[in-house]
């Protein structure tokens, strides 16, 4: 919920800088390791955008898979959750390097 409010805040702020009055589509990039549930995000989005410049805007969520560097295998591996072990060697020495983001990428505006 609060994340949607932060999104709206950014949309409002950017509307002044980029001169638009209506947002019809919003692309979010959400990492699989961030604490965001895409379904919950969709659910809140419509409610929060009601009555705003992004009322009825379409939400597009681009999911980014979790990735980490395995010190033992010396390569990047895909992980589903933060506490996963390395799928190749089963090791714990993983440094997460992708999939934590929560970003607004792009907007379609009028």
């Amino acid at each position, binding site marked *: 919920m*609060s994340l949607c409010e932060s*999104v709206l805040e950014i949309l409002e702020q*950017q509307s002044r800088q980029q001169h638009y009055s209506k947002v019809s589509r919003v692309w979010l990039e959400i990492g699989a390791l961030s604490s965001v549930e895409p379904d919950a995000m969709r659910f809140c989005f419509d409610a929060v955008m009601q009555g705003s410049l992004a009322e009825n805007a379409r939400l597009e969520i681009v999911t980014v898979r979790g990735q980490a560097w395995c010190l033992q295998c010396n390569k990047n591996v895909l992980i589903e959750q*933060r*506490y996963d072990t390395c799928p190749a060697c089963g090791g714990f020495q993983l440094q997460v390097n992708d999939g934590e983001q929560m*970003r*607004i990428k792009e907007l*379609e505006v009028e």
Partner: protein
Amino acid sequence: MCTVCGCSEGETTIEHTHEHEHHHGKHSHTHDYGSGAAHAHAPGLSQARMVQIEQDILSKNNQYASDNRDYFSKHGILTLNLVSSPGSGKTSLLTETIALLKDQLDISVIEGDQQTTHDADRIRATGVKALQINTGKGCHLDAHQICHALENLKPAAASILFIENVGNLVCPASFDLGEAHKVAILSVTEGEDKPLKYPDMFYAADLMILNKVDLLPYVDFDVAQCIQYAKQVNPRIKIVQLSAKSGIGMESWVQWLNASRAMQLVDFSETA
């Protein structure tokens, strides 16, 4: 995100707030909400276009958090963000901790709660300064609210500031308040798998307090398993087992507090 500025939903209330200067005054934050729709276009013409913004959803919060962090660092204030599910014993732990330490050092408390001022009243009864932030529907505190609370609370230099976050193990994990450490409090009545169910929170915390250990004989709770889960999510996490009620284990917590406080004071001098 506060009624002071009218910058957002208008659900939040901060006790006794009147000033409107931000203590750091660096960022100008615009409070002209709703006036954004100035550039209306002629009907019939489609003006659709794409705008790249590439902005982190939490960037605004993180900016406030970083301002708060500077403020704490400048004044040598150790700030701890206490997070947990409802009822794990945050307020009890605070009142007991204050009773142990208030003669030796300055302590103040920011209480986050959705509705009541009940917790702040409990803290004030111990004789230290406390300020309540009611978040309304909001399920966490954000850095902007803390920034305003600081203007009113004005914690002393070289003091400890506790922030009792809203009881919720999800949202507070994402919102940096500028604190030195998040402390996750888990009680033995909640089940040992909490760290696996809410990994983001336990990953973000530097210390996990396992509270209500006085109840261990009566509940089915596997302490070793719980610790293993927590370390699995966050290998660096430290764990203290205690009971706010009986007082067992409180000295380990105080030890951790003193060590953290010493770290915060390393580059601080009263005269600076």
